């Protein structure tokens, strides 16, 4: 357990010592800021013209949570790409695995470090809801969906980082690791679309087993259908937690594979 924390803390600190990750955060907040501003302007102008008061209900979701999710899809592979791939290319993996550290401790430590860092970035986006709350009159925004969204968002981030760690484990090249993790995350992202396409073409209403699996694997539906609307569902928590466990298990196997290669 202590080894996991030692490795996680080292990874976490290392992010703040390398310029590339300041770049990632700068880009993330630049995009999010622009989208936030333009979405907010749109919401305000449409609210003014229709003079309805219901807009404040899903305001944070509409103006920033959705875009944040999409930005995370691209930012997380950039954050995780070096976690294992860099150890492979520098040869430091040999150092780690000849120190008294279990393969699983190494992988979990890496994942925890990456998840902590990404969570800090996500945490910083609280500035937008706080701002929204301040400008929404008279009662501010509905805080229930916001809190549930952020809680599940942390799990979602954990799952994305776990995918990144697992996919980057066999690579020596960090760029290759980036694209491979992006590809896997993107596949999960759009698997719901695949399910609907299947149901249209099959005409059976999407009840085939493959369609159901695709629908279940849809990465964002476990966020949008529940937490985003203010509900916490155990099924979604289990979904993200099992992705984390599965991915870390495979990552450990990949690191262990040096034994039988």
């Amino acid at each position, binding site marked *: 357990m202590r080894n996991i924390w030692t490795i996680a803390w080292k990874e976490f600190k290392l992010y703040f010592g390398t310029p590339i990750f300041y770049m990632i955060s700068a880009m993330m907040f630049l995009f999010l800021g622009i989208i936030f501003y333009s979405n907010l302007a749109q919401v305000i102008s449409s609210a003014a013209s229709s003079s309805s008061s219901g807009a404040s209900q899903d305001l944070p979701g509409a103006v920033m949570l959705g875009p944040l999710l999409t930005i995370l899809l691209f930012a997380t592979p950039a954050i995780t790409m070096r976690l294992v791939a860099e150890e492979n290319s520098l040869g*430091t993996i040999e150092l*780690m695995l000849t120190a008294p550290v279990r393969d699983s401790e190494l992988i979990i430590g890496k994942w925890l470090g990456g998840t902590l860092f990404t969570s800090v970035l996500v945490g910083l986006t609280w500035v937008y809801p706080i701002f929204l709350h301040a400008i929404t009159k008279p009662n501010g925004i509905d805080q229930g969906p916001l809190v549930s969204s952020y809680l599940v968002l942390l799990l979602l981030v954990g799952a994305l980082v776990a995918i990144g760690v697992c996919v980057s484990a066999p690579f020596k090249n960090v760029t290759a690791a980036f694209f491979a993790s992006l590809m896997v995350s993107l596949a999960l992202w759009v698997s719901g679309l695949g399910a609907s396409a299947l149901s249209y073409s099959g005409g059976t209403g999407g009840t085939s087993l493959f369609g159901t699996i695709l629908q279940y694997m849809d990465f964002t539906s476990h966020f949008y259908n529940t937490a985003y609307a203010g509900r916490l569902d155990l099924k979604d928590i289990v979904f993200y937690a099992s992705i984390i466990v599965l991915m870390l298990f495979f990552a450990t196997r990949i690191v262990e594979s040096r034994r039988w290669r």
Partner: protein
Amino acid sequence: MIQVTNLTKWYGLRKAIDGLNFHAKKGEIVGFLGPNGAGKTTTMRILTAYQPPSEGRAIVAGYDVVEESLEVRRRVGYLPETVPLYMDMTVLEYLDFMASLRRLPNADQCVDEAIQRVNLGDRVESYIGNLSKGMKQRVGLAQAVLHKPEVLILDEPTIGLDPMQVVEVRNFIRELGQDHTVLLSTHILSEAQQLCNRVLIINKGHIVAEDRPENLQARLAGAERITIELAGDSDGAVDVISGVKGVLTVEPMSDGVFEVEITPGQEIRPAIVRALTRAGQDVVEVHSQGVDLEQIFLELTRSDNKSKGKHQLQKKKKE
């Protein structure tokens, strides 16, 4: 400290090492000598519990490398061939990190001692990426000795260093040999000769010789050679030298230079000089060539290859 029995490692269909047997005692510096691709790094990776062997057994510091690998890793210090360093960390951060991974009870003291031992005192706050190769090597060595391991395994520790740094690292290894068991691999023969109590010569996954450097020399020194250089007219010198008792062959090399093979263990150089002076020759230089590890190494690896070649040829003929 190190006990290796019948160690074999396959990489797919290729046998990297084949039935290695050797041991190293406490306080011994054992040199692992062989050309590139001989199986040195593979053996070291097995001994540091990075990879398990395909067959055979290795006991390091009293623990089996497969069954008790964490115990082995706690007691071994390892410097791989490509020194593994995190370029974005400072020297101090890196050593602190390694110390906490090894859960050293008095981590700060261990880090300070390691820094002093490798003489890195003034660079501890520098980023590792900004250090010279020699300095990086020192950081790698500091990491290897951090936890005062019983066994130190160093893979080509002087490769790529300038001559001054090579001398420094060699002195450091000599110092380490006083209270650690050191297994070091090298393909520089003079290094093994200078540093090691015992040398294992490995070629194509086999140990072809194992002994003290001086014994290896004696074993192969079937005949000793000396070179004699004469000034001026050297006509008839061959006959004069051949006439001295103990001279086996005389071979004129170039103008006035002769290579003489003599019976080993006898000092007949003065007798040759006297005979030549009596015959009116002016001797400018006499020196013994001796047999060094370089010749032994070439001899052993060549004969190993030859015997294999022959064997394969015979096989083909049979087919």
